[in-house]
């Protein structure tokens, strides 16, 4: 039997859990959570460096070296296609030509809902420039298909708003996306706890990307391990194929024959 791996842009990954690295207490906790999660793909953000005011500032890339993890630079905080493209050009230079990226173009700072018009424009430019684009988007199946047609290597619809922990609000739309899209579909944003991740995987999603659900848990490292197990359990349940639901009709698990005689008759 072939090993069940996640194939993104011609590379196989054993873990279907992708992890963000924001909001942790410190780098030690970031590293411990990443290790406990088993994640191989780790998102990072690109921000202005200190310019001499803090010369001994620790660097995230020393904690999570590109030699050990597939780093996925994001465009968090970008509200236009232009800013997102510039950010990822900087990321590619920073990471020595690394082309796998997470595109997200946001619509407004309250909802952080994706601006799909700008996202489509940025995706076109980035694909033309040779980037391998994993794209955060709404759970709109038509937009998801358009992003695949542009050449994105993974479609990453939200389960609910970024950082909300509200779980999967519209499993039906995720199903519609998976019916239409051939590239991996990875739920990105909104997962709150382990059961949310398991449900995403049971639906047939190829992976789950999360950050706050782990970083904002009371014990992030423990939650990172729980998420690892949930993603694995959900994937196995999906592959195993759940039993059909039998509405209003029970079916005993124990044999119906050989039951001892009733003393009442």
């Amino acid at each position: 039997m072939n090993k069940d791996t996640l194939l993104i842009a011609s590379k196989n990954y054993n873990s279907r859990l992708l992890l963000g690295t924001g909001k942790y207490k410190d780098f030690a906790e970031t590293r411990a959570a990443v290790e406990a999660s088993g994640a191989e793909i780790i998102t990072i953000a690109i921000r202005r460096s200190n310019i001499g005011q803090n010369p001994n500032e620790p660097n995230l890339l020393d904690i999570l070296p590109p030699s050990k993890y597939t780093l996925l630079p994001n465009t968090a905080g970008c509200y236009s296609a232009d800013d997102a493209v510039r950010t990822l050009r900087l990321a590619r230079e920073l990471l020595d030509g690394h082309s796998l990226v997470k595109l997200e173009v946001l619509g407004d700072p309250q909802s952080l809902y994706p601006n799909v018009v700008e996202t489509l424009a940025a995706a076109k430019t980035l694909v033309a420039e040779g980037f391998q684009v994993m794209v955060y988007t709404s759970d709109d199946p038509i937009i998801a298909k358009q992003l695949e047609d542009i050449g994105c290597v993974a479609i990453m619809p939200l389960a609910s708003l970024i950082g909300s922990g509200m779980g999967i609000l519209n499993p039906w739309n995720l199903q519609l996306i998976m019916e239409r899209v051939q590239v991996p579909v990875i739920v990105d944003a909104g997962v709150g706890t382990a059961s949310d991740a398991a449900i995403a995987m049971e639906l047939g999603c190829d992976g789950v990307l999360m950050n706050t659900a782990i970083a904002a848990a009371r014990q992030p490292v423990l939650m990172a391990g729980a998420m690892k197990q949930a993603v694995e359990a959900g994937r196995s349940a999906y592959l195993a194929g759940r039993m059909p639901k039998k509405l209003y009709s029970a079916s005993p698990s124990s044999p119906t024959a050989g039951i001892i005689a009733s003393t009442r008759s």
Partner: protein
Amino acid sequence: MISVSINGVVRQFDTPLNVVALLEQMQLGGKRIAVECNGEIIPRGQFDQHLLADGDRLEIVAAVGGG
């Protein structure tokens, strides 16, 4: 005297300088950073040839935690 905006902060320099000298001044020499000048990437291999000009707008970035 030239004025250069670096990550939104305007700095003045008496003599023209290249990116290598600028990064050394800011103790960023050899650090994992990337540099953009007026919206265009300056590849690391060109840091020593790229002379800063009056009015240049630089962005110097690094990787940080994010989701």
